[in-house]
């Protein structure tokens, strides 16, 4: 078995490799910023974010493989690195200009196919050169392993710097310009002679981009008047003015328009009229959009209002008319900044009503408010007969099978936490839940409205009577009964699969049918099929007795496992501890630091042979098993960065050992890297949008365990050929 003697290389193994460090820092910064910019232009869902991540990894693998195959000149390395921020800026502008190319209005929806096309197209511009740069850097340094190590270290540093020093303080565009300028400085320091020209060109390009950043955003919203835009911690907040109306958007999604109380009235009154009023109300989201004003119409009420994004509050305070601002400053309102679920779970307060006014559950962070675990937590904080309420988009005149499945799931999930539930039909469906009976009798609701002296516009008696006509309620009841009802849980967030289906169904294309068909498969097939395929690949020794193929397979499996496990751990963290910006960046950095540390360990190994690889594979299997078995407990928050560090550590060490075992690695330094990325891509493309909501966390960890057990077996059986 080949072993690398690194007695001579031990001193070289840790030598700082500035181009590799720069490569990693650039990659991390560009990925974060491109993802944020993409989310601002396409409907935010796990599916679209998965497209971007998958595209990134895919093109990185292609770039790496292509550079290994075609061997561009080493001198191209500084040009490639210089091109990355310039191409990223072009990608930003392409995103903002996408709607013109597609002939769309600002705010007009696009389908999954268009989103995928743009995700893969734009990531190609940035990730392809980065993948190729890895190979050139490896050739320059004479060691793919060392480049991997310093690239990981650079990624950790770049990720932390971007998340901590850029994103909180400036727009995506400006952050890109600063990151690009910093990269130029790095180029200047890392290379000499004519290559310094590349640095100057980058700086100029970044300056030019910074100048067009603001105008390009205004152009995107034309013909609407964009009065302000701000890239906050949680996304882009845009304020549009249409005559006297103020419209607030978060990542292209309209949060509210003012004056327009239609949404606020239905979010509040169907719930609060159940008991003729309320004393203590918890409102999560939606307060600025008029919800607070509606709640304050009830005598004697006090409100805890929780809002995640401080930017929403800040801009609303600046632009809303005085009556709307007055609600925020009312003495009866206590405003809390932070995650609503974390607030509720850490509170001892008991409420008469818990009202959710949030977007639909299309992403993991939002889905946490629509799970049985959250509903049970809310139930525990409600007084006897207290009411929980939320709204989701529906349809007034016809409920198709996709919508029926989603609504039935919401109903079933509520019913798993509350004995009494009711649903108000309409273009939005208003869900109500309580421990005491609920009423949808228009006469009763009308009477209570009159008793309180409630003045409303969109929930007047005639409107309510029309909306709650027996025929409409029967039609809704039939749809709820016909829909495939599942329980939406933290571990199996099936709702955002339904959201992906609903989104795609508006376009009546192939994506809708594929998604719907995947959901109708017996659940075991969803995992068994891909598992079986991968296992067959790992069993390839019989067909491909050459060692490199087996090692590349093992590297791909490692990439798939670490990417998948990383995503699952992050989602689990968000579920348990909330979506707080300041906490996510350190988690991502922990993984990258672990990667670098693991690569360091790999470089320092005295023996990098089959036994080491098998040991690492076994350890990875063990870690996956531990992550799976500990799902039933609630680990402390500190356990998550530790788990991510370990994952990264194993991945980094694995890569170094695998690279040493591939005899062709020296000739084709990108082959193992490409295999790693290809495996990660497979994990990214299907995991969070389809496999996780449909199969669930426990099944996925079980599947990963089976895969890694098969991988271990393949390595053990074929160890003599490694």
């Amino acid at each position, binding site marked *: 078995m080949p072993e690398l003697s690194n007695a001579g290389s031990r001193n070289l193994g840790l030598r700082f490799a500035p181009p590799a460090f720069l490569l990693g820092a650039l990659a991390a910064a560009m990925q974060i910023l491109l993802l944020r910019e993409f989310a601002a232009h396409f409907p935010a869902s796990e599916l679209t974010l998965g497209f971007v991540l998958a595209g990134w990894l895919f093109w990185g693998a292609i770039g790496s493989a292509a550079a290994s195959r075609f061997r561009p000149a080493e001198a191209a390395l500084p040009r490639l690195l210089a091109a990355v921020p310039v191409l990223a800026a072009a990608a930003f502008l392409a995103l903002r200009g996408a709607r013109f190319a597609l*002939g769309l*209005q600002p*705010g*007009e*929806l696009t389908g999954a196919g268009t989103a995928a096309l743009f995700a893969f197209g734009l990531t190609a511009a940035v990730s392809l050169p980065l993948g190729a740069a890895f190979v050139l850097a490896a050739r320059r340094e004479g060691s793919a392993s060392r480049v991997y190590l310093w690239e990981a270290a650079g990624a950790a540093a770049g990720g932390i710097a971007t998340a901590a020093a850029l994103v909180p303080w400036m727009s995506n565009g400006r952050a890109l310009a600063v990151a690009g300028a910093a990269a130029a400085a790095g180029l200047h320091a890392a290379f000499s002679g004519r290559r310094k020209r590349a640095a100057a060109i980058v700086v100029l390009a970044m300056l030019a981009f910074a100048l067009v950043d603001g105008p390009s955003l205004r152009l995107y919203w034309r*013909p*609407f008047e964009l009065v302000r835009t701000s890239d906050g911690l949680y996304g882009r907040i845009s304020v549009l003015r*249409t*005559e*006297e*109306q103020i419209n607030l*958007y978060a990542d292209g*999604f*309209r949060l509210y*328009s003012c*004056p*327009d109380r*239609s949404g606020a009235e239905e979010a509040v009154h169907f719930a609060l009229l159940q008991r003729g009023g309320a004393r203590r109300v918890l409102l999560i989201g939606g307060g600025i959009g008029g919800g607070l004003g509606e709640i304050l119409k009830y005598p004697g009420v006090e409100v805890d209002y929780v809002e995640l994004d401080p930017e929403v509050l800040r801009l609303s305070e600046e632009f809303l008319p005085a009556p709307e601002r007055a609600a925020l400053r009312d003495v009866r309102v206590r405003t809390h900044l932070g995650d609503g679920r974390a607030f509720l779970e850490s509170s001892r307060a008991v409420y008469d009503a818990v009202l959710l006014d949030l977007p639909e559950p299309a992403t993991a962070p939002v889905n946490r408010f629509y799970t049985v675990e959250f509903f049970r937590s809310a139930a525990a904080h409600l007084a006897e007969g207290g009411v929980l309420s939320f709204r989701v*988009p529906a*349809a*007034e*005149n*016809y*409920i*198709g099978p996709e*919508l029926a499945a989603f609504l039935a799931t919401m109903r079933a999930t509520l019913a798993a936490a509350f004995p009494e539930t009711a649903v108000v039909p309409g*273009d939005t469906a208003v869900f109500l839940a309580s421990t005491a009976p609920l009423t949808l009798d228009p006469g009763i609701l009308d009477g209570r409205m009159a008793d309180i002296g409630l003045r409303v*516009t*969109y929930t*007047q*008696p*005639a*409107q309510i*009577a*029309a909306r709650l*006509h027996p*025929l*409409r309620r029967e*039609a809704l009841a039939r749809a709820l009964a*016909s829909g495939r009802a599942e329980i939406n849980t933290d571990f199996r967030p099936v709702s955002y699969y339904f959201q992906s289906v609903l989104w795609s169904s*508006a376009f*009546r294309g192939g994506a809708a*049918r594929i998604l*719907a*068909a995947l959901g*109708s*498969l*017996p659940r075991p*097939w969803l995992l*068994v*099929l891909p598992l*079986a395929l991968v296992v*067959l690949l790992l*069993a390839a020794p*019989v*067909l491909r*007795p050459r060692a490199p193929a087996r090692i590349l397979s093992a590297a791909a499996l490692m990439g798939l496992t670490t990417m998948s496990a990383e995503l699952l751990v992050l989602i689990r963290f968000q579920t348990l501890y909330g979506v707080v910006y300041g906490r996510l960046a350190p988690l991502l950095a922990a993984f990258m630091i672990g990667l670098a540390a693991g690569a360091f360990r790999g470089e320092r190994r005295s023996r990098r042979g089959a036994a080491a690889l098998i040991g690492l594979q076994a350890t990875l299997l063990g870690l996956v098993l531990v992550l799976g078995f500990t799902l039933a407990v609630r680990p402390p928050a500190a356990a998550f960065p530790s788990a991510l560090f370990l994952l990264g550590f194993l991945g980094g060490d694995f890569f170094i050992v695998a690279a040493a075992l591939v005899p062709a690695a020296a000739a084709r330094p990108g082959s193992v890297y490409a295999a790693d990325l290809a495996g990660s891509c497979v994990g990214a493309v299907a995991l969070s949008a389809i496999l996780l909501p449909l199969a669930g966390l426990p099944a996925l960890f079980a599947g990963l365990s089976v895969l890694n057990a098969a991988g271990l077996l393949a390595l053990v*059986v*074929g160890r*003599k050929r490694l």
Partner: protein
Amino acid sequence: MDARRPLTGMNRRRFLRTAAGTGAALASGPAALFQNLYAFQATANLSHVEARYYRKLPDREIECQLCPRKCRLGDKERGYCGVRENDGGRYYTLVYGKACTRAVDPIEKKPFFHVLPGTAALSVATAGCNVSCKFCQNWEISQSRPEQVTHVDFPPRDVAAAAEANRCPSIAFTYSEPTVFYEYMFDTAVEAGRRGVRSLVVSGGHINPEPLEALTKVVDAIKIDLKAFTPEFYKTWVKGDLAPVLEAIKLIARRKTWLEIVYLVIPTLNDDPDDVRRMVRWILKEVGPAVPLHFTRFMPMYLVKNLPPTPISTLRALRKIALEEGLAYVYTGNIPGDEGENTWCPSCKTLLIRRNGFAIEANAIKGGMCPSCRTPVPGIWA
């Protein structure tokens, strides 16, 4: 060790055999997947009633004559609307009696403001539409083929009986596009007429003159959604044509069938005051000042659900333009409680009907006239 015989004892042939067997077992999963993928294509309880407006062509082709698209179809092909199909050289409607939506709505919701105020309309629709508006409120059915929706058998006789049972003095053909279920609508209107139930049509007006002419003889009122007054808007946002809609409006007005027009105002897309003024002048010239015109507030929907809703001031401004130009009855819609919901006597400005959303708070019209100055107020009041 012989490199050709790995330790497992597995050889290439045995591996391939095992893989093939495993693959066959696993293939049942993909087979189920493909079956589900194409489940939409299965026909499901569709009607097979011959269409009334088409002409036969050689080679079993037909040309539909119902709407301006005039789809020319080969055997087994369907029209743009998706609910009519050429079967062996004869053209059939697939949605006769196949209602996917049935509801009881206040008549003001359609909106009809000069027809039986304060009453309820039994509202019926099938799947399909002959245009594709990006802002469609009922896209789930209008942009679907009949096998993609769940429908019930609801023949004309049952529709009329249901209207009586629900104490609805009218039936509204609405939600999707009634033109595409023309035969069903026509026969139901005839049946309803026999029972003294009025028939109302809520349509985009994309219909040919001949069928429209026949329809006006059996229905009582038609509301046309005039989506814009520029051909460009119709081309980009509706995938239709403006000209046939204008012709339809003129025809209905000539036939004396009660007509109301709705203009859904979408910010920046069709709210240009100059275009609206041209439209109002056209209406005055071709239809007359007494046709009610509704400027309705756009609420974000379907593919444009992230556009902002129409500012209220825009609606009020457009209403003012229309009144200044000389239209007698101009309303704002989707703004409950707005002054623009009310009906005023065009002569003496007496408040005739005060509305608040769907509620009629006061109705002073007596015998179809203003109680103060006796000016006739056109409409169907009883």
